Structure formats: structure tokens, C-alpha cells
């Protein structure tokens, strides 16, 4: 069994699963907003991944087709192999899926109520702050490389100013990096 868990034991797997279970319910605005906490847990607290491995895991998932939620599976895989991917994916999906089904069935009629509107309006600035923090942490490994820092800035400008598809930006980043510019 150990070959499927990259040398981790079931205690690690259970802890991994439990952590993503909690993150699932905090992922208002998408799983990507919880990356700072994933980085704190996986890189800073447990040293299961290096900062470079963490950012690379997310870059791989961004470049591949499908929902970018899949970076969660890549992180799990890089920590603890196939079993790790299974633990993080089921952890991140079960609570939000159950809640989401329950809330839709509970009825859409309440979405105009003061309570729901206050919740959306109040949480929106926090979501923006979280996204910016995510960008900051992902850009961490670029610190010191002028080329990489320019690449971050150029991506921001191009994405805000134009309607270019993100996949082209990722491809351009890959080419620039392959030729030693990042």
C-alpha cells in the first residue's frame, strides 16, 4: 500500500483528508481562494512540499484542460501519490457538494432576502483580499528573478486590458521559462 502513498502513513493521509474537508466549506469564491491555507499547511507546517513544488503543482493544473479545482488533486498526488490525490479531492468535494445540493433544494426564493444579500456583499471584499493573497504567495518563488517578476506584471496587465484567453498567457510563460527568461 505504501507505494500508493509515497511513503506516508494513514495518519498523514487522514490529516490531509481532514484539512481539505474543512477547507471545502471555506472555499467561498472557488477552491483557489484557499491556496494560501493549503500552502501554510503543506509547505510551512508539514514541509511535505517545497514552495517551488507548490507553485509548480498549481501551474500544471492551470495549464491542463478542465476546472482549475484539479490543482487540489495535483497537490495531493505530489504529497502522497494516488491515495493522496484521492484524499484531497474527496475532502474538498464532499462538504461543498452536500451543502450546495441542500441549499439549491432549500429554494432559490430566498436569494433576494436581506440576510443573503448582506452575506454576499459583506464577504465580497474578503474574497478579493484572498485572491490577492493567493497571487502574492504563488509569486513567492519568483522573488529575486527579474524576468519572472516582469512576467507576473505583464500577465496582470494583459489579462486586465485584453480579452486574450488565459491559456495563451500560460503557453507564453512556458516558452519564456524554457528559454531561461523566468
Amino acid at each position, binding site marked *: 500500500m505504501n507505494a500508493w502513498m509515497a511513503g506516508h502513513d494513514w495518519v498523514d493521509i487522514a490529516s490531509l483528508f481532514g484539512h481539505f474537508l474543512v*477547507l471545502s*466549506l*471555506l*472555499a*467561498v469564491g*472557488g477552491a483557489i481562494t484557499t491556496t494560501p491555507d493549503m500552502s*501554510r499547511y503543506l509547505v510551512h507546517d508539514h514541509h511535505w512540499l517545497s514552495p517551488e513544488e507548490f507553485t*509548480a*503543482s*498549481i*501551474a*500544471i493544473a*492551470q495549464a*491542463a484542460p*478542465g*476546472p*482549475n479545482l*484539479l490543482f487540489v488533486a495535483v497537490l495531493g*498526488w*505530489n504529497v502522497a501519490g*494516488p491515495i493522496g490525490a484521492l484524499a484531497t479531492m474527496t475532502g474538498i*468535494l464532499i*462538504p*461543498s457538494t452536500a*451543502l*450546495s445540493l441542500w*441549499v*439549491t433544494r432549500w429554494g*432559490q426564493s430566498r436569494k433576494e432576502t*436581506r440576510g443573503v*444579500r*448582506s452575506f*454576499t*456583499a*459583506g464577504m*465580497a*471584499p*474578503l*474574497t*478579493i*483580499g*484572498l*485572491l*490577492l*493573497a493567493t*497571487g502574492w504567495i504563488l*509569486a513567492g518563488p*519568483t522573488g529575486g528573478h527579474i524576468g519572472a517578476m516582469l*512576467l*507576473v506584471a505583464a*500577465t*496582470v496587465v494583459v*489579462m*486586465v486590458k485584453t480579452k486574450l484567453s*488565459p491559456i495563451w498567457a500560460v503557453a507564453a*510563460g*512556458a*516558452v519564456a521559462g*524554457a*528559454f531561461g527568461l523566468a
Partner: protein
Amino acid sequence: MLAVAQRELVERKQWISHQQFLELLSVSQVLPGPNVVNLSLMIGDRHFGLRGAFVALGGMLAIPLVIVLAVTALYAQYASLPMVSGALRGMGAVAAGLVIATALKLATTLRSGAMGVPLSAIFGLLTFIAIALLRWPLVWVLLGLGPVAVAIAWRRIKP
């Protein structure tokens, strides 16, 4: 991703109207969990019940999951090549830029929100400092700042 879902579900299959798509999307944005995943669950559930919901979820995830894990496994083989690790570094820098750009685009909608610009800026900045610089756990930051922000919004939204 969302643009593709909209085109397929509304324009080609005509399972739901533009109006319904927009409503479902706004609900799925408030809920925790990935938007696209929540959206596919809701549409599957509405049209085909619980089985539909899980089929939609599986369809959304299965094939991309296999691709992404295959790429990950390949990457592990070739990570030592300087060109491969360089490409990954470049893609990582772009990924950081993409997230920041999304934040900036979404931030423009705060102008019309109930919180107003100054309060939004304060809460956004506090969240950023707590998470990015102090590295506090997300749970405590959201549970600490969230209720305050929601309470302020509650007072500003007239019943």
C-alpha cells in the same frame, strides 16, 4: 470554462434559459466550493434529480482529472531537465499573474456593492495582510473578519 458551459447548456442544448443560468451562477458563487462544480451539480439536480447531479459532477471531473494526473506523473520524470523546470517556473509566474488579474477585475464590481469603496478596501487589505504577510490560518481570518463585514453590510442594506 464558464463561457463554454453557458454556450452548451443555454444555446445548444437549451436545457435552461439565460436568466436561469445567471441565477444559478450567482447562487453557486455565494456557496463554498468551485463555481463550475456547484453549477453542474445544480443543473444536473434540477433536470434529472440526484442521479443527474452526480452524473454531471463525474462528467465534469473524470477526464480532466486523468489528464492532469498524467501530466503530473510525466513532469516528475522530467523535472530535472532545465528546460522543463524553467517552463514550469514561467507558468507559475503566469499563474500568479492570472489570479491577481482576476482579483482586480472582480474588484471593480465592489463599487456597486453595499459595502462601498472605502470599507471594501479596508476589509480587502486586512484579509490580504492576515493571509499573505502574517500567514494566519484561513478559518480564523474568515470567522474573525467575515461576521463583522456581513454585519456592516446588513446595516447598510435597507430591508
